[in-house]
């Protein structure tokens, strides 16, 4: 925010703005920027998803829309979705039905506020940044439940119930896996977490000790489950629940869910990047010429690619296997990582 | 208007009364639980407001944190009881569940 204000002050004719006006300008700029990034990432990642899926399965993916390798496919899809009829089922609970997509989108949009894009360039420099992100994404769960209930459709309700159970369960290993890192930095502030990783790839938290390395993979698995993507796409399971909680949604409202899904995907990838993978710091000194935000985004996109790679490789797990994995495997291992990393930090005197 | 302690206390009083009303008038056990949550939140607002305006220390916030944790534990157990009640009696209306045995 401060960096943005400084940037605004450099522009002509802004020297005499009051502090409040400056703040409001910076905040609204940031909000517009966030929303643009979010919408863009939904558009880019849908195409990327289909291309990655295609190449993993030895085919091309969309090729015909737009001249070159179907680049306009995602744009065309978006236009098609926006042009569709907006249907509210007759038996649906109309108020909740219309509010649920907003809540889902709100949950993922609010979390974007604390993402550290570059030094000093964060919409809200909160002391509790990481905790805030995890807390706010729980709004998504309520939105999913609301959508499932309001649709008045049994598949939607099943999907919502599964989704909520899965998301609240996997929130625990997700949050636990970041605790070793928080112990290293002694701060929940997202900027501080990134700054603590300065100086090359070996200073990234993922390579600090073996427990953080394991914790990173715990985080990664939990984040796949948290975003409801394969192999943990229980809420959506198109083969059993048709489309899960957004089965009754069409047009713009469906686009909201879609947007939220890809925004969430990018969000968890960015969290993985700034918590474990060095944020905006380049891995090698010779890559330092790149702008920090660009490095950050490139790393995020690579994490998204990893996510897609997993999705298109592994088959869907069963619900009971999913819960078994969370409660009996991932939580114990995450706890072990916290304890082990804590002991290591105490013995090496790095504990803050 | 200058926002001060009385404003927070008033909100808290309103929430508390509403929660009390819900606890007394709702038949649905989950509705009663919601009333309890409202009352706990009222107490929490008081804790935090007092810690900010009067105590000038962190103690009120600590209490609020403990209240939140205990509320979560209470909700988990209470809702488990509601579900058990639903399974055994087929209803969640608190006033119809009167017998001590099935």
């Amino acid at each position: 925010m401060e960096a943005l204000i400084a940037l605004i002050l450099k522009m002509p004719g802004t020297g005499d703005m009051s502090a409040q006006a400056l703040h409001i300008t910076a905040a609204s700029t940031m909000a517009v920027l966030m929303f643009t990034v979010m919408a863009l990432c939904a558009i880019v990642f849908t195409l990327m998803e289909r291309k990655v899926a295609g190449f993993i399965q030895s085919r091309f993916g969309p090729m015909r829309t737009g001249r070159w390798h179907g680049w306009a496919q995602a744009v065309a899809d978006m236009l098609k979705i926006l042009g569709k009829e907006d249907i509210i089922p007759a038996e649906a609970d109309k108020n909740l039905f219309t509010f649920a997509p907003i809540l889902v989108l709100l949950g993922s949009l609010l979390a974007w506020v604390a993402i550290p894009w570059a030094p000093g360039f964060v919409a809200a420099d909160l002391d509790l940044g990481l905790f805030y992100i995890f807390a706010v994404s729980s709004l998504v769960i309520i939105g999913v439940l609301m959508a499932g209930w309001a649709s008045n459709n049994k598949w939607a309700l099943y999907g919502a119930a599964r989704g909520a159970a899965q998301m609240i369960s996997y929130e625990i290993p997700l949050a636990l896996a970041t605790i070793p890192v928080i112990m290293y930095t002694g701060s929940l502030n997202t900027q501080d977490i990134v700054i603590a990783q300065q100086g090359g790839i070996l200073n990234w938290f993922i390579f600090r000790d073996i427990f953080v390395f394991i914790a990173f993979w715990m985080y990664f698995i939990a984040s796949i489950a948290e975003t409801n993507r394969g192999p943990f796409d229980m809420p959506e399971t198109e083969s059993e629940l048709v489309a899960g909680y957004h089965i009754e949604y069409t047009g713009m409202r469906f686009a909201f869910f879609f947007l939220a899904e890809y925004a969430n995907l990018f969000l968890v990838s960015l969290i993985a990047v700034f918590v474990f993978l060095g944020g905006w710091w380049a891995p090698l000194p010779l890559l330092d010429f790149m702008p920090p935000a660009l490095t950050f985004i490139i790393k995020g996109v690579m994490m998204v690619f990893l996510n897609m790679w997993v999705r298109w490789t592994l088959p869907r797990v069963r619900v009971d296997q999913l819960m078994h994995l969370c409660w009996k495997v991932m939580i114990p291992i995450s706890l072990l990582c916290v304890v082990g990393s804590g002991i290591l930090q105490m013995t090496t005197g790095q504990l803050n | 208007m200058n926002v001060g302690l009385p404003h927070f206390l008033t909100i808290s009083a309103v929430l508390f009364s509403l929660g009390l009303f819900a606890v007394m008038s709702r038949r649905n056990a989950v509705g009663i639980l919601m009333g309890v949550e409202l009352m706990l939140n009222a107490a929490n607002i008081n804790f935090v407001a007092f810690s900010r305006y009067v105590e000038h220390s962190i103690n009120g916030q600590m209490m609020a944190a403990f209240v939140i944790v205990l509320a979560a534990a209470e909700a988990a157990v209470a809702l488990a009881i509601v579900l058990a009640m639903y399974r055994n009696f087929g209803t969640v209306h608190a006033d119809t569940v009167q017998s001590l045995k099935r």
Partner: protein
Amino acid sequence: MAQYFADIYETVSSVLKGMQITIKHIYRKPVTLQYPDERQVMPERYRGFVHNDMTKCDSCNICAKLCPVDCIYIEAEGKAKERMMTRYAIDYNKCIWCSLCTENCHTGSITMSHDYDHSVYDRKTLVYEFMDPADGLIPCHRATRVDMGWWVEEKKEKPKPKPPVEEKPAAEAAPAPEATPEAAPEAASETAPEVAPETDKPSDDKGAE
């Protein structure tokens, strides 16, 4: 407890193996054929849409009689030298691509082409008319045909109708039945560049009776 860790190890190793396989596929050349732009080369004996070479057909009716589903409609009028074919149509709604007609054609006029992608919006358009009303009626008798310029004498005289297996090299060059000229113009010209007579153009507007 040992089983627990063995399970974790097995899961991780098998997941890694799967991931390895899929990442290899990213570098592999996609096997997809860009269909409307590229076409698959069909094997020699592929049974595509049936094609009738109107310059050879003498409307002997054998194909229509042999057809197990009665999908070939042949109508003719007159007798002997004046016998004129008025209609030759194949109903692809019914056709089962059994190749009985081509195997028994004594003039070798009816063949299985390599065409496979004639999608239409209406079932009626799947009845392919092989005669163009603009060309008038086609004489069936050979002498009359030669007189009227309908019979194109082949260089190599075929005394007997050959089984279609040996005839296939010729059939490769055989024209595709141009179903709807606007539907796949370049497709037809690709598969049968040296295509033949104008009579091949079916008339869709006739439809199926």
